[in-house]
């Protein structure tokens, strides 16, 4: 693409006197003043935030929270993909470890011992939601996160699950378990696996 | 009991001398900015003395021209050049000698002038001395006034000439 040379005309004496720009500025500022100043009978045209709350549009990307499945169980299986993908490194997952607590729902074996999101670091980019293979984390509509200390802004698993609520979706692990249990006639004599639910 | 004007005179005079001394020989700081600031104080104290002499015009001009403009430019130059050698410089014998001669001569002239001066009461300084001052300047002292103007003009031309790079 060739460069387009924009000709810059020299200012005329009238323009150089600053008077036209002064009058222009006066006009612009007066028009705004006239339509905003309350004593000229105007109503505020901005939103009065704490009293009026913004209607969050569909698809808005707010704070990421963990969701539960229909039975109130943790969906997250501690695969740590979100921790890996998180650009500002806001997510920190403590895996259960070898003797960790088993998952609170059938068949998944694994759930995070601790799941922390530092909301001061989070940039609401949504990569965690994008990468999650379990549909366990979603960007929800919260945009006004406040706290009085840094520690308070690090949301732990409990808080995230509470804020996240329930998300209806396919229950992958439950489905697998049902399928396995349907196959009663598995021919192995070894001790069948107990599922504690 | 001394009059209020007397007390003020001694206060201003003392302040003038003290600040003048601190300007040239400050034992606590060799910072050129500090010297400049004391010079400003000297000038303002002298303006106070002029006020006591009812020379309001002179006082105002003193503050306006010297404290308000000349010294600010001094400060400007000091800060821009960031003069630090001054803090280390030793006394220069020749400079002290020449300085002493200059100060002595000036002191002689002033003493002589004071000696031959008419008593203060006889110099009638009317209220609002601006108009008489202007009249005197443009009649009696017209020549010195104009010569001074030309001197300033010459100085200005000189500065412009020196600061033009291509002329060297």
């Amino acid at each position, binding site marked *: 693409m060739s460069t387009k040379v924009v000709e810059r005309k020299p200012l005329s004496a009238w323009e150089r006197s600053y008077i036209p720009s002064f009058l222009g500025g006066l006009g612009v500022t007066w028009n705004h003043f006239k339509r905003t100043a309350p004593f000229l009978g105007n109503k505020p045209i901005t939103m009065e935030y704490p009293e009026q709350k913004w209607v969050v549009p569909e698809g808005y990307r707010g704070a990421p929270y963990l969701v539960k499945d229909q039975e109130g169980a943790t969906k997250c299986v501690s695969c740590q993909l979100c921790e890996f993908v998180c650009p500002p490194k806001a997510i920190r997952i403590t895996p259960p470890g070898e003797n960790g607590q088993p998952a609170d729902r059938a068949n998944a074996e694994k759930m995070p011992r601790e799941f922390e999101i530092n909301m001061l670091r989070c940039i609401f980019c949504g990569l965690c939601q994008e990468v999650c293979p379990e549909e366990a984390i979603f960007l929800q509509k919260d945009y006004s996160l406040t706290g009085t200390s840094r520690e308070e802004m690090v949301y732990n698993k409990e808080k995230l699950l509470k804020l996240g609520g329930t998300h209806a979706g396919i229950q992958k692990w439950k489905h697998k378990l049902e399928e396995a249990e349907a196959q009663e006639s598995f021919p192995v004599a070894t001790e069948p696996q107990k599922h504690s639910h | 009991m001394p009059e209020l004007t007397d007390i003020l005179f001694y206060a201003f005079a003392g302040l003038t001398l003290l600040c003048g001394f601190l300007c040239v020989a400050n034992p606590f700081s060799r910072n050129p900015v500090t010297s400049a600031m004391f010079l400003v104080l000297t000038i303002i104290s002298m303006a106070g003395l002029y006020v006591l002499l009812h020379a309001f015009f002179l006082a105002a001009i003193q503050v306006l021209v010297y404290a308000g*403009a000349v010294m*600010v430019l001094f400060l*400007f130059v000091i800060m821009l050049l960031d003069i630090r050698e001054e803090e280390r410089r030793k006394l220069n014998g020749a400079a002290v000698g020449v300085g002493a001669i200059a100060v002595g001569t000036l002191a002689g002239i002033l003493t002589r002038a004071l000696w031959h001066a008419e008593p203060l009461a006889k110099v009638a300084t009317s209220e609002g001395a601006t108009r008489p001052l202007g009249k005197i300047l443009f009649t009696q002292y017209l020549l010195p006034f104009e010569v001074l103007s030309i001197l300033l003009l010459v100085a200005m031309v000189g500065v412009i000439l020196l600061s033009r790079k291509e002329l060297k």
Partner: protein
Amino acid sequence: MDFFQNLDPAVQFFIFSAVKIGVVFGVTMSFVAYSVLVERKVSAWIQDRVGPNRTSPPIAQFIPILGPFLTRLGIFQPMADGLKFLLKEDFTPNYVRLAYFWLAPAIAVIPAFLTLAVIPFGSTLGNPDNKMVIADLDVGILYTFGIVSLGVYGIVLAGYAANSKYPFLGGIRSTAQMISYEIAMGMSVVSVFLLVGDLNLSKVIEYQAHGGWLVFKQPLAFFIFLVAAFAETNRLPFDLPESESELVGGYHTEYSSMKFALFFLGEYANMIASSAMMVTLFFGGWTLPFLGEPASGLLGGLLHIGIFVAKMAAFMILFIWVRWMFPRFRYDQLMDLGWRRFIPLALANILVTALVVAFVNR
């Protein structure tokens, strides 16, 4: 009253002056506080916003009917601002030049108040001897210029003391800017005094009471004075010493808390002083075209003071409004305007006025 009349005239003068000083100082301070509020409100309206409308003492909202209205008006905002300035941490960075660091804010604020001493803010109050001016100096205008010229030290020293490059650059800029515009400003009023024939500001008002406002006789002088006043008070479009887009915060970058507040105070006090000067020199001070005689009674005196304050407030609003009308000047444009346009114009104006005075008004 009799007790007062019976006092020694010197003591009377002393007490009367002290009261005037106190009242002028108090009024100016509250004027500063509320001009900040007005600035915020007007700016907000110009930008389609609401402006401060929240701050109030906890009890204010319980006042019946009036309470919520008062709260929404934001009139308690200046108190909150002041309190905040007092309570914030006064932070002194390392490696500042401590003495000047402390001195600079004080120097910045004092000249603005000293200037007000010679402004006749009313005619008389009660008795014809009670002139509504703190110091009726014969060289009033020169005094003003002398004091104003000292104001630059506050900014220069602040820039120097902070020992940091942005304040330093701000200080240097402001030095050059203020000296340049002082010349234009001073030359513009010379023509005024050529007409009036006296430097006493009371005489200037007297002249205008009979001969019409000087703004009509000297529009060019007024224009130059007005623009120079913007430059002298470091207001937009001439706020180059603290232009945040290039100098962070200029000379007060390193200041916080009350020291910063003093600079702030100084700026608004300077605006008030400039407005007062403009009202006095060009807009007839306390007079109105049909109201030129010094007041004989208490009521008339108060009316004159009111007229003065109203005119001054109009100028304050002009100061605030202009802030949103112009983008900031470039530094070379600023200098060009000062030296190559205003000074020659002012000189020409003096010449023309002198010729008129010499040959026409004789």
